[in-house]
């Protein structure tokens, strides 16, 4: 079963600017976790926002499986916590707005916050939390609606390494336990390899390289130390830097013209 089908996608923000994605097409199966990777400015965040429906494509279509479209959740690049609400109230916000807030939901929110290590900060306000803690609250807020697909825009970039690993494993655990499907944007090649079944390597010429079937069945932090893992990271890193070089060249050529 496919969960998302993208066809001939293009997006331009102004009539004279070059369109992003140049007719990108791909189909995502419902058991695939996808990572969007690419140099700055290649449109990773825009693609994620298009998938969520926060932006509309200039041409082409995005079709989300109707069974899943109401069960999508989004984590922005910034925590975007409501400053006058406590940690717990921030997590409960989506349920309040959809009128599903009840004592059971509150218990679930508390449990979620405990799970991400903020069980003792329920009544704290966002400005009393560090950037990393705020990001974790944002993640909990996205999970409280029990989504089937969660879209994350560089969610772990602001976290310290240990917390980042912990959150990565939490995502893997949710994927295994709840069949949660995630699509995420990252700058970290090792994070991309560790978390995803499939990587979409984007560049600004619109060519997206689709890298499938990463060979790891079991994923845990020690995996990152194995030669097999590091070989793949190296391979993708060189792909990535080739892409960046060609981008720079084409940019330079464009600016000469």
């Amino acid at each position, binding site marked *: 079963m496919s969960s998302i089908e993208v066809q001939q996608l293009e997006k331009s923000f102004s009539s004279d600017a070059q369109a992003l994605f140049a007719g990108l097409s791909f189909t995502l199966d419902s058991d695939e976790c996808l990572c969007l990777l690419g140099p700055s400015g290649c449109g990773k965040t825009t693609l994620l926002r298009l998938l969520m429906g926060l932006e509309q494509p200039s041409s082409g279509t995005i079709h989300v499986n109707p069974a899943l479209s109401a069960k999508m959740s989004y984590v922005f690049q*910034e925590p975007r916590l409501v400053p006058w609400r406590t940690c717990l109230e921030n997590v409960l916000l989506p349920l309040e707005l959809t009128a599903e807030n009840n004592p059971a939901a509150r218990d679930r929110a508390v449990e979620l916050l405990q799970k991400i290590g903020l069980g003792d900060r329920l009544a704290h306000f966002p400005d009393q939390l560090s950037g990393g803690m705020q990001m974790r609250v944002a993640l909990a807020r996205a999970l409280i609606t029990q989504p089937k697909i969660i879209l994350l825009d560089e969610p772990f970039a602001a976290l310290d390494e240990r917390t980042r690993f912990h959150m990565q494993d939490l995502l893997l655990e949710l994927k295994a336990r709840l069949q949660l499907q995630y699509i995420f944007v990252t700058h970290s090649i090792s994070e991309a390899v560790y978390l995803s079944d499939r990587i979409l390597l984007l560049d600004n010429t619109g060519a997206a390289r689709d890298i499938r079937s990463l060979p790891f069945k079991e994923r845990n932090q020690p995996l990152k130390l194995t030669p097999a893992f590091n070989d793949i990271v190296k391979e993708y890193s060189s792909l990535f830097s080739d892409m960046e070089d060609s981008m720079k060249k084409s940019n330079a050529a464009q600016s000469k013209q």
Partner: protein
Amino acid sequence: MITTIRLWIADKLPAWIFLAGLLSIWQLIVAQKWVASYLLPSPLQIFDTTLEMWPDIFAATLSTAQSILWGLGLSLIIGVSSALIFFSIPLARRAVLPFCIFFQTVPIIAIAPLLVIWFGYGQPTVNASAFIVSLFPILANTLTGLQETDPQLKELFRLYKPSRWQLVFKLQIPSAIPYIITGIKISAGLAVVGAIVGEFIAGGGLGSLIDAARTQQRVDLVFSGVFMSSALALSLVYTINLMTGLLFRNRPYLRKQ
């Protein structure tokens, strides 16, 4: 506790010492007859007059305070609700707001005689005068606060498809609260001016007391009236601080200016 007291003393002591110095010099100037006491009565003389005339002064202060509270209260209700209307109906804002600004630019002293014609002598005119001058800052601040709602938070709310009312009550009004508080504080000072000006023309309260004392060449009583009106303004601002502090004691963000 002791440190708090020490900090408080360190913070406030210079102002008290300065005040004591000023009053001593003033007392000295008058006692030495460098300035005639019918032009500038000494602080002690003003104090004596205040004590002696206390029942009258107190009644006048009470009446002025009542008018201020009427005017300010009405401004708060009408200002906030019309800001909400202007915010939700842009056409109404474009049609009516320019005239509100015009109203604001006409000096109250010029309108006051009209008010006497409409409302007659006495408190209704004074209330109206306090209301007119204090309306605009509350309205304008509330409108700004509503318009300055963080677009990122608005986008976050949009993810959960809120109703119009949810957006207003859970996002826009809380965002505007710090602005409304600032508006009330500005308006409080203006309401005192409006009430006293109203009383000059329509009679009653401290305005009339000051005016009557002037015609009787009772400069000491004029000073008493002036001091009482500034004490009134100060205690009003202090009360507003106290009340907003109490109201939002659990929401530090909302009382941040």
